[in-house]
């Protein structure tokens, strides 16, 4: 399982997490799926709509924002392939709360933002039995996928 992402897009993801610090930043990935590889073509940074006082450790994407993302994906002949969010001053590992809210199939990229500076990035996918997350390899690329060109 691999999440392939352009270096420039990953930098935008990291910047988004830094800009939202000390709250959790969030967004979605639009891209294409080829076998076990998901290739990110576009990112959509979104608003964290969780209650303000809890945003340091919680995020929520409004379903209407997801509708917008789905419509944008359809317009560009892409798919919503994953979610990115940041963990302020916490490791880039999913929490029990992440697990309880996780959807199958999506790739979840977590960025650890330490003291306002983006640190590690790790990607995860929900196991079929919902018992845990399985780590995905993050492949950083310099060029967009051939399938999208």
């Amino acid at each position, binding site marked *: 399982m691999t999440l392939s992402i352009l270096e420039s897009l990953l930098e935008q993801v990291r910047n988004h997490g830094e800009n939202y610090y000390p709250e959790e930043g969030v967004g979605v990935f639009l891209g294409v799926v080829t076998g076990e590889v998901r290739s990110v073509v576009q990112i959509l940074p979104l608003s964290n709509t969780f209650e303000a006082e*809890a945003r340091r*450790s919680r*995020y929520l994407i409004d379903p209407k924002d997801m509708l917008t993302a789905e419509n944008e994906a359809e317009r560009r002949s892409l798919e919503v392939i994953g979610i990115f969010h940041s963990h302020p001053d916490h490791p880039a590992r999913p929490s029990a709360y992440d697990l309880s809210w996780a959807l199958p*199939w999506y790739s979840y990229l977590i960025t650890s933002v330490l003291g306002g500076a983006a*640190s590690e990035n790790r990607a995860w996918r929900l196991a079929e039995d919902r018992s845990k997350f399985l780590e995905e390899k993050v492949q950083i690329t310099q060029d967009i996928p051939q399938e999208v060109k």
Partner: protein
Amino acid sequence: MNNLIRVPTPLRPYTDGLKEIEVMGTTVRAAIEDLTHQFPGLKSHLYDPDGNLRPYVNVFINEDDVRDLKGQETPVSNGDRLMILPSIAGGGVSSELRPVDHSALRTNQAAIIGLLIGSFIGDAALIVGLTGLIMLVGTLLGVPGFKSFYRILNRYRLLKPNLIYDNPQPHRFAQGVGGMVLALSSLAFLGGLTTLAWVLAWLVIALAGLNLFAGYCVGCGLYYGLNRLGLRGFDRSPPPGTFPGRRPTAQSG
């Protein structure tokens, strides 16, 4: 009556890849039940074990969230568009772990060991007292006593930060315990109990050495033991997967 229900991307593997499915039912509840009847693999992702819709499942009828209408009892009329939209949520661990610079802690331990061994060699009891004082002041301020020395090493790039997700409180406690032992050592010097004084100083050297070279903080282990006993003021548990007192491994970057 038949209507179409649109399923989000993550659930399409359970609908044979179909984006829209024809469902029967005069209410939202009946429509979704028909959906899971057609595609049983969807059920565990839409419903929790108690049969309630999972919190991330939102159902829209046309442009309206059914929660704003009559919930799952919202009537479905011919031509209505049903859509399952996920709420995407999650979040970090709500524990109190924070990045702790273990390079600063190691510098502290090295400085303590160096000064105490130097004081033993030079028979300088005053250095023992001063070292203890620096440790106690550091404990009161919540920082490693020799943090200024570490900052110099850091400024001249002689040492890089090593940030690890950890609890700072046990390390502060351990420094305080070491400072108290050196204070007792100083009192022993003042009372003419020189042998006892050096034994206490060497105890601190040994414990600091165990921490610096073997990654085990006895004072931290003591803190976590008091935490297990439920003592007030010792409210931090060891980082997940870490033996109490051992240096954690979860890097923070």
